[in-house]
Structure formats: structure tokens, C-alpha cells
């Protein structure tokens, strides 16, 4: 089910595909690096894949933690846990559904399993195991769903996860949360150990630019974080799109537009209070996600707005209900306007639109 770790004709692993922001120093450096070691992908090539390291630290004081992968220990850096706690690490092989159900059995005895593989397989291939073996009996298993969205670029639709939020947020009793960077991922992992139930953690490809210089304090599932304040438009984003929205907000200021940026890290349960605040305070809302516009963040926000009843200008921005074109991630982000320039453009389009209540 998972692909090879190198792509024919490129000699670059998926983790080495150039950065989200074209021309960024991070991406260029990473590309130049020789990023393979005998143990697989070098940690420096995927610096925000800190789950293995963070869990290894936490496991020193928490005997409940075990980690499982499905033949992607290097690609997802759970190998950093395996190296320090080999007796609490299980590589299940290319058998993702088995991995999820094995973790459920472990959790039933009091352990806290973390399962890690590509988002496409955790959410789509294992959807029924997640529903039946994790959410229905309330097993506290944390899914580390890495390489979500279209981060695997030219690997194609088989490896993309642009429907995972839609599938996962339809499951009762499952917390669905997106990490925008390494610090937020650490906060999510710590919160998950205090949480009595399963958590789907959507992650990018490990090279997400920094949003939070430090681990956000008082992080809580279901409580959005306002990362920038503004008055003209609210950009409600999640995961990989928080950083582009912040950059878009910086650019919009130069054109006299002030944008509030909300990191809606938790998609289920979504923070209705924060959405209603955007309605009341601003009245113009653009949701931004690396996901199909059907069923994801935009849909969750739209549901809240519709039931709230106050007319607003509202648009969902994401992948427009298509299986995306083939290409490197940076090219895809540009093509689908999911980079800073694209988001700024969409924001301006929306601001030029007549309000429903002004008609």
C-alpha cells in the first residue's frame, strides 16, 4: 500500500521534495543536503517530524506509551522512539489495518499506543478500523497521520490525503486535529496523553515552516488559537495552511487590508465560539485548507455559520473537489493558490464581493 521511498528518475525521497514556499532557504538547503543515512531519512531533512523524539522523552515518565508503524519508521521518524525504547516499538509491516486494530487491543489493556503512517492509509484504508476498533469502544489510540494533503506531490492521488478530514470528522468520539508545525505537534502529543479517547493527528511532510517559536501554552483540543489579529477579514486555516495565511496577512497589510488569522487546529470538535466571534467581529470569512473543499475545515465552519444565522461573506478555499494534477508540492500549492500569494488573492476577491446583507 505504501510506495517506495525513492521516486524513479529523481533520486529524491518524498521528504526531499522542495519546500512549501518556493525559494525558501529551508527548501533549498534541504535539497542540497545529502539526506539519506543508513537508517533511512536523516532527521535534519524532516525537522518538524518530532513525534518520535517527543514521545521518546515523554515515555521516560510514562510507561503507557508504545509506538507502532507500518514500515515507515524512517519516513515518519518514529525511529527516534525505536532507538531509545526498542521494547515499546512495533513495526507491523505494510499492514495498516492490522496496525490500527493491534493498537486497539493494546489500548484496551491500559497502554497508550501511537500509530504512525501516511494519512491516506490511516484515514481511508483504515477508516472502518478507526470507527469500529478505536472510536466506538473509545480506545485512546493516537494516529500520527503524516504526509497528509498533497504533500507527496508527484506520487499521485494514491498517496494523497485530501479527503481524510472529511472521513475522520464524520466519526463520533474521534478528535481530529491538525499540526501546523513542530511546536504545535508537541503540544498535541502532550494533550493527547491527557485525553481519554482516540485522536487523529494530521501532519504535513515534516518540513513545515515555523508558526509557533515555542510550544503553545494552554493548548487544548477544540480551542482555536488566534495567531494574528485584524479587522477586515478572518482567515480560518488549519495545519499546513496556517503559515501561508500568516504570510498572506503580512502582504495584505501593505495593501491596507488587515486580516485576523485563526489556527483552527481541531476540526472535530470544531471551535464554534471562535467562528461565531469571526462572524460578529468581522463578517468576512475565508477558510483555507490543504484538503478537498467538500467535507473538511470549510464545511465544518460553514455548518457553524449557517446555524448561527448571521449573514456573512464566506468562501471555502482548498482543493476544488478534484483529484489534483501531478507535480512537485510547491508547484501544486502555487497552481491551487494554496501559497501566500494565492491566499492573499482569494482574500481580496472575497472582500470585493457584495455582502449578502447589502443586496
Amino acid at each position, binding site marked *: 500500500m505504501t510506495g517506495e521511498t525513492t521516486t524513479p528518475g529523481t533520486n529524491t525521497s518524498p521528504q526531499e521534495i522542495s519546500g512549501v514556499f518556493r525559494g525558501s532557504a529551508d527548501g533549498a538547503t534541504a535539497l542540497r543536503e545529502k539526506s539519506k543515512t543508513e537508517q533511512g531519512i536523516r532527521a535534519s531533512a524532516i525537522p518538524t517530524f518530532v513525534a518520535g523524539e517527543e514521545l521518546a522523552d515523554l515515555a521516560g515518565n510514562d510507561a503507557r506509551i508504545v509506538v507502532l508503524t507500518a514500515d515507515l519508521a524512517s519516513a515518519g521518524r518514529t525511529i527516534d522512539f525505536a532507538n531509545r525504547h526498542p521494547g*515499546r516499538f512495533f513495526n507491523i509491516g505494510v499492514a495498516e489495518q492490522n496496525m490500527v486494530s493491534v493498537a486497539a*487491543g493494546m489500548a*484496551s489493556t491500559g497502554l497508550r499506543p501511537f500509530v504512525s503512517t501516511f494519512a491516506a492509509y490511516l484515514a481511508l484504508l483504515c477508516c472502518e478500523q478507526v470507527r469500529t476498533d478505536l472510536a466506538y469502544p473509545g480506545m485512546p489510540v493516537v494516529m500520527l497521520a503524516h504526509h497528509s494533503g498533497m504533500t507527496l506531490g508527484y506520487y499521485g492521488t494514491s498517496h494523497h490525503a485530501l479527503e481524510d478530514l472529511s472521513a475522520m470528522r464524520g466519526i463520533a468520539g474521534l478528535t481530529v486535529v491538525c499540526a501546523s508545525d513542530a511546536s504545535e505537534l508537541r503540544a498535541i502529543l502532550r494533550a493527547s496523553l491527557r485525553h481519554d479517547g482516540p485522536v487523529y493527528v494530521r501532519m504535513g511532510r515534516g518540513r513545515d515552516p515555523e508558526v509557533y517559536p515555542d510550544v503553545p501554552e494552554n493548548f487544548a483540543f477544540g480551542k482555536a488559537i488566534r495567531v494574528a489579529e485584524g479587522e477586515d477579514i478572518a482567515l480560518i486555516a488549519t495545519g499546513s495552511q496556517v503559515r501561508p495565511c500568516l504570510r498572506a496577512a503580512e502582504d495584505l497589510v501593505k495593501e491596507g487590508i488587515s486580516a485576523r488569522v485563526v489556527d483552527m487546529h481541531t476540526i472535530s470538535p470544531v471551535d464554534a465560539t471562535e467562528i461565531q466571534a469571526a462572524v460578529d467581529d468581522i463578517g468576512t470569512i475565508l477558510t483555507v485548507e490543504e484538503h478537498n473543499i467538500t467535507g473538511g475545515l470549510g464545511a465544518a465552519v460553514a455548518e457553524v455559520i449557517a446555524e448561527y444565522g448571521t449573514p456573512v461573506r464566506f468562501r471555502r478555499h482548498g482543493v476544488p473537489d478534484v483529484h489534483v494534477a501531478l507535480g512537485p508540492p510547491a508547484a501544486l500549492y502555487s497552481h491551487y493558490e494554496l501559497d501566500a500569494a494565492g491566499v492573499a488573492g482569494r482574500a481580496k476577491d472575497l472582500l470585493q464581493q457584495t455582502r449578502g446583507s447589502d443586496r
Partner: protein
Amino acid sequence: MRRLKVVAVTHNTAPIPVRGTQERKGLFRLLEEKAKLVRRETVRLSRIAGAGHYTGTFSCAELFSALYHSQLRFRPDEPGWKERDRFVLSKGHAAIGLYPVLADLGFFPAELLDNYTRLHSPLGDHPDMRKVPGIDFSSGSLGHGLSVSLGMALAARVTGKEYFAYCLLGDGELAEGQVWSAAMAAGHFKASNLVAIVDRNQLSIDGSTETVMGVEPLTDKFAAFRWDVRRIDGHDYDQILDTFSDIKHRSDERPFCVIADTVKGRGVQRMELEKDWHVGNLMGADYDEVMAEIDAGLQPARSLA
């Protein structure tokens, strides 16, 4: 006020008596009565629900009886006892026969059976671990149970406990690919405290497994996946008890698989190897006749033509 400290009783700590002894004969009589309870209650509860999974429950009545009255270590007064053996009913549709066993042992009041499947009853067609004391994992979707049981077995390794994880699978269920992912992983991890019991009752819903989707040769299949395999008559207490006794004294590092050759519908002649009784509802005189037949005990079984 002083509280009495209740000391929970652990079941099935004594060794299984050997063949030919009075103790063994006594255990036989007990197990026969408990298997009758499984069949009788399955018939009674099916009438309450209006339909029930008769035949796939009858085929494992002897296995239920022997597991709960000779093999599994558990404490009805302390269902969450961490050292208990785990039992996962991967063929969750046989829960109608397991609930009476659990109620009889005192896991929950037997009166709950009278409301089987009614609105807000904890007892549904497939078992829910959050609602039913004694159910170690929820099941119903075929193919998951062996993976879950493997997780329980591996957890014992992490936490330094000595329990066994038992999993009862159906034979039709073996067409699910996840079973073989779990089987492969169990062999790989040398999960010696994992026991899979296959209720080889010969039929899935649409007919003979070998017509619908052939599962044989089963012994060779599990052996090839690095399991220690034994094939027995799943209605023969001597074979069941000898096998259970050996499980506790094995030094093999492989997981253990018991292929229990059974007869779907066993104990009620009109249902034996009849696919149309996978789900059904006995009424009127048929109900009384079947109850009398069960009370009379097992007669020679039918076989597939």
C-alpha cells in the same frame, strides 16, 4: 461504617483433570450442562429479539462452555482485573450464546437477558465492551479480532504480565485479509501467549465455505504463517480439554492455533449444516420441540453430503 473487603474469586486456577479420573467426569457433566444453557438461552433470546444467530452459536457451545468453565482465568467480581486472560469473540454474532455464560458466572444480572436487544439494552446482536461486563473487546465487524487479540498479547510483553489472549474466529471470517495480516504478525513477533481458535463449522452465510470461498488447507496455512497448529473435534470435550491443558504447559515460542472442526447448528438436528438457519426465529411448537431436543443432549451429528 466499616466496609467489608470483598476478595474477588479467580476462576479456573486449578489444573484441568486428566482423562479417566472422577474429576474429569465431573467436569464433563458440568460442561455438558453449561453447553445446554448456551443453546437453550440462544433459542430463548432469539425469540425475544424476533431473530437470532442460532447455528454459528450452537457450533461453538462446547468451546464457550470449556473456555469459561475450565480455561480462562477471570474474576466476575472484578471484570477489569488486569491479570485476567483476555477473550475476544471475533465472530461477534455468537454473542447471543456468550451473554448467558457471562450472566451465569455473575458478570451481570441474568435479568438483563430478558431485555435482550430491546431499546437501551446493553446486550445487542454483537457485543459492546463498554456496556457488558466480561466482554474484553467489542466485535461484530469480521476480521478484526485476531489483530486486537495480538495487541493484547503483545501488551502483556510490554507490561510484564502473564495472561493469555484467546480469540475465537469463524471459518467464513478467514476470507478477510486482515486475519492473515494478524496471523503473519503474530508469527513474526512469536506471540506465544496468543491462542486462536477457529470454529470450523463448515458454512458461511451463502453455503459451504469450500463453495463460497475455500479456506482449506487450514492447518498448513497457519503453520506456514509460523503458528503451532492443532486440529481437533470442537464438540469433543476430551480433545478440547487435552488441548487446553497443553496450552498452559507449552514451551513453544510460536502462537497457538486450534482448528476446531465443528458442525454449524450442532445440537438441533433440523439446523445442522443448514445454511438457512444462520439467522432465524423458532415459533410455536417448533420452539418447544427444539428446547426438548437440546435438553436431551447431543445426538450423532449430520455431515455435509
